[in-house]
């Protein structure tokens, strides 16, 4: 009997084989229909997807479209390339464009070199004081804007401690390209360091051991194995730093002197000359290179990477203790670290001395002055960041979850759009927001809401990225297990995925809080007398050369940021942890078991 069945099946199979291709096309639409029906059975999921698409369209796409349309229309709103013609025929704007590119490229090279030095030293070498270097290599990420520029002015400015105090040079010009390169390299090398650490750590140590086993020297291994394998990471780090440098506003705004950059010029055009169209066109010029770098990094380089993202290190890597390798690397790292400490220390000291360059008497006057200005701006910064942070974090995790785990039409579009803001300079986003939200029904100008949205959508990509990479490491069947046990998408996300994403969620929260607190470029157009924030207050102190007061303000901000990180750490990692819940449950059902 069984055999009969089989024979029939085989016959049917053969019959099917030829018209299979036709059938597939019919199936395609059927499959899509089934998928759609299934999706509709999960209202929570559909709602989340629609809501996110709506938000992305309104707060990312719409403002960008506004910038684009303004740059190709005239006063009456008709299509016109007159604005473009005016900007492009002005040679100084071309100069500005090339200035930005040149700065970005130089800084990208230097920051990547420093980043590689630190990443290699900390992943491959038994470095004395490893944790100290690790801390310094990430410090610039959480530091407020203007610190390093301010420090440069304190050290090398007209009243500079080194230039005037030590070397007695009266006419040293600290403002310009060299200072800018130095400041940006220090500011952005952490990006390179983190990218390269990830790559270097994920290279299977067995590959390097194999080369060693085949008789290669350490230098030969580095040249023929480690370095080639980290090339995609180096390119990635170069592009990421390039984007950061291009979009940097706060450093060039205060220390570039006559070396103009696009982000600052766009700001000057809009606030100084009320030429919004000109600003929008510069914004377009600014966004093109960053967008290209972003697309290269994300879609071209990611495919080139030799290392798998998912694999945990198979075994502990044996770091080399060879003194001929350790000490040169240690010395280099130490010199750079000391310089970083010097820069931060200068600002710290600067906040406590009477008049920098003239009277180094210790005083609390600057703090008194800052307090006398009122707490409003600082409180605003904290409140706005505190509101934006959880929104950013949760939205980021939901998007990461949807993009990695769910199938729905437009998934790639959602992924691209939500990551787009990491390539959009803050200045451009800011211009987009003032253009997009100055009339009904989206009249948000001057409100706290517009600032919160700017923070949220600008800082989301990092949360998405850390969520995405964590999710890719979580066995998909863990969520499937929850599903098959009866839980819907929402419940599975809350009970299983989110707890497993805790670490990524936390780093997303910290990052977005710090970035919100320290944001300048994206919000400089959006603040209002009611909603002014700390960073723009520091900027205005700069503009009236009240450097020591700015230093005091920066010191306060550093304290607030560190406190906030500690608080977030407690909130996310300790309260509501699985262990404490486990304990509660334990006592509960032990009681039941006894009954």
């Amino acid at each position: 009997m069984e055999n009969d069945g089989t024979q029939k099946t085989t016959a049917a199979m053969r019959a099917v084989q030829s018209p299979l291709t036709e059938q597939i096309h019919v199936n395609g639409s059927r499959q899509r229909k089934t998928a759609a029906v299934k999706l509709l059975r999960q209202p929570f999921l559909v709602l989340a997807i629609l809501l996110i698409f709506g938000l992305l369209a309104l707060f990312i796409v719409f403002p960008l479209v506004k910038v684009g349309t303004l740059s190709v229309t005239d006063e009456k709103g008709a299509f016109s390339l007159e604005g473009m013609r005016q900007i492009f025929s002005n040679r100084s704007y071309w100069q500005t464009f090339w200035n930005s590119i040149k700065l970005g490229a130089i800084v990208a090279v230097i920051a990547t070199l420093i980043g590689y030095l630190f990443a290699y030293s900390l992943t491959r070498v038994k470095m004395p004081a490893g944790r100290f270097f690790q801390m310094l290599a990430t410090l610039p990420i959480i530091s407020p804007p203007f610190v390093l520029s301010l420090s440069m002015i304190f050290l090398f400015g007209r009243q500079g401690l080194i230039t005037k105090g030590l070397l007695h040079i009266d006419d040293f010009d600290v403002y310009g390209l060299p200072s800018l390169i130095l400041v940006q390299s220090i500011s952005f090398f952490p990006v390179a360091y983190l990218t390269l650490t990830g790559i270097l750590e994920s290279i299977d140590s067995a590959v390097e051991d194999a080369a060693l086993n085949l008789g290669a020297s350490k230098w030969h291994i580095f040249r023929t194995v480690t370095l080639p394998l980290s090339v995609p990471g180096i390119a990635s780090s170069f592009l990421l730093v390039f984007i950061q440098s291009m979009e940097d506003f706060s450093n060039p705004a205060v220390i570039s002197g006559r070396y103009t950059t696009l982000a600052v010029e766009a700001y000057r055009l809009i606030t100084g000359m009320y030429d919004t169209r000109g600003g929008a066109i510069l914004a377009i010029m600014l966004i093109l290179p960053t967008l290209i770098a972003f697309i290269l990094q994300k879609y071209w380089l990611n495919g080139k990477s030799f290392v798998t993202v998912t694999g945990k290190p198979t075994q502990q890597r044996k770091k080399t203790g060879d003194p001929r390798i350790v000490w040169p690397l240690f010395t280099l790292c130490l010199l750079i670290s000391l310089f970083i400490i010097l820069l931060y220390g200068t600002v710290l000291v600067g906040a406590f001395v009477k008049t920098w360059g003239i009277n180094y008497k210790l005083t609390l006057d600057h703090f008194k002055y800052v307090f006398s200005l009122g707490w409003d701006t600082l409180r605003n910064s904290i409140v706005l960041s505190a509101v934006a942070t959880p929104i950013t974090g949760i939205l980021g995790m939901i998007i990461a979850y949807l993009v990695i785990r769910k199938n729905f039409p437009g998934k790639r579009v959602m992924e691209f759009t939500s990551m787009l803001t990491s390539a959009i300079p803050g200045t451009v986003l800011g211009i987009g927001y003032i253009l997009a939200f100055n009339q009904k029904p989206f009249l948000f100008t001057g409100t706290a809401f517009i600032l919160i949205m700017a923070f949220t959508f600008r800082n989301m990509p990092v949360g998405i990225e850390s969520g995405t990479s964590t999710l890719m490491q979580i066995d998909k069947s863990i969520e499937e297990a929850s599903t098959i046990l009866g839980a819907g998408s929402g419940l599975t996300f809350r009970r299983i995925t989110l707890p497993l994403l805790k670490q990524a969620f936390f780093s997303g929260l910290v990052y977005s809080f710090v970035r919100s607190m320290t944001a300048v470029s994206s919000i400089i157009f959006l603040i209002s007398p009611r909603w002014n924030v700390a960073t723009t207050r520091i900027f205005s102190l700069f503009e009236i050369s009240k450097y020591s007061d700015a230093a005091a303000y920066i010191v306060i901000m550093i304290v607030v940021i560190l406190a906030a990180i500690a608080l977030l750490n407690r909130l996310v990692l300790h309260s509501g942890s699985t262990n404490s819940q486990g304990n509660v449950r334990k006592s509960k059902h032990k009681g039941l078991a006894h009954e």
Partner: protein
Amino acid sequence: MSDTTATESTYKAFSGRSSNVTLKNVTKVFTSYDTKKEVVAVNNVNLEVAEGEMVTLLGPSGCGKTTTLRMIAGFEDPSSGEIFIGGIPMTTVPPNKRGISLVFQSYALFPHLDIWENIAYGLRVQKLPKAEIAQRTQKAVELMQLQGMEHRFPAQVSGGQQQRIALARAIVIEPRVLLFDEPLSNLDAKLREKMRDELRALQKRLGITSLYVTHDQSEAMAISDRVVIMKDGSIMQVGTPREIYEKPANRFVANFIGKANFIPCDVVGYDGQEAMVAIYGKTLRLPKPGDNRPAVGSKATLCVRPEAIRLSKDETLLGGKVTRATYYGSHVEYEVQLDDLSIITEQNEAKESELFHVGESAWFTFKPELIRLLS
């Protein structure tokens, strides 16, 4: 959440209903992302799993067995065809509302929940009363002999225990159908045998309709009421372990289950049930040739299991030189060169007189009742 209450009512509606699984012309076509090529993973599969039955999908990797299982679970949608559970089409029923449990290859235990919470998870999802959750979880813990480790986390227990937890979590919700995706493949050989017997005993006791995916033929033989042999997305044969071994439908099945020699023959004629074939010019009468009936005069293949050949030193009709002798303790396996064929035989009673050395001549005596005719 509306989500959960729906689940609850569905579950209640499902329980008590019949739980047979039917696959009707189920086909799954995957389109690869980079090449846009279409790959047929499952090809027009028809299958009926009766209530309380344990059916194994067996085949080499890439044969479509896991895809079939995932379609039944609802994680994949069939490209065409229909899957029924308890007679109800499942096409638009999401996996969380099918009343099914799945034991994953990786176990997929929730790493952030302790053992107790892992097992209770499905019950909590159903929002059952607290007392019932505690009582049923406790029962599952006892059934799986997990007492004393309820508050450890999955990473703190052994592989065999993780396996038990996964099973407890799957059965505690009293599913209509239990699916297994190579659940024992992460265990070492000894434990695997022990767990497989436990699993079978449990399934029989609970009477849950079960589908089991494996690539291990001895596991399939030991555990199933019926075995489904799959290859390249298609079903090759369905039958009890005995039927599959004794009456393989084709060469692939014969080769996949146990060892087999394939000897070309000419079909000479039929005599009632019996078949007459000629190999190397010698005629052989097969009392039980199986269900394949190739036409008289056509070329066919004989499926000869190693135990169907007895070797002797006395000359018979067919023989050859011994090329390999492997001692297995319970039996000796010989490879004998017959013309251009290597014939594998198994000699059970390894008496002194019947020992062969490599290079010696050995003569075949067939046990014709064990030989099958393949077309």
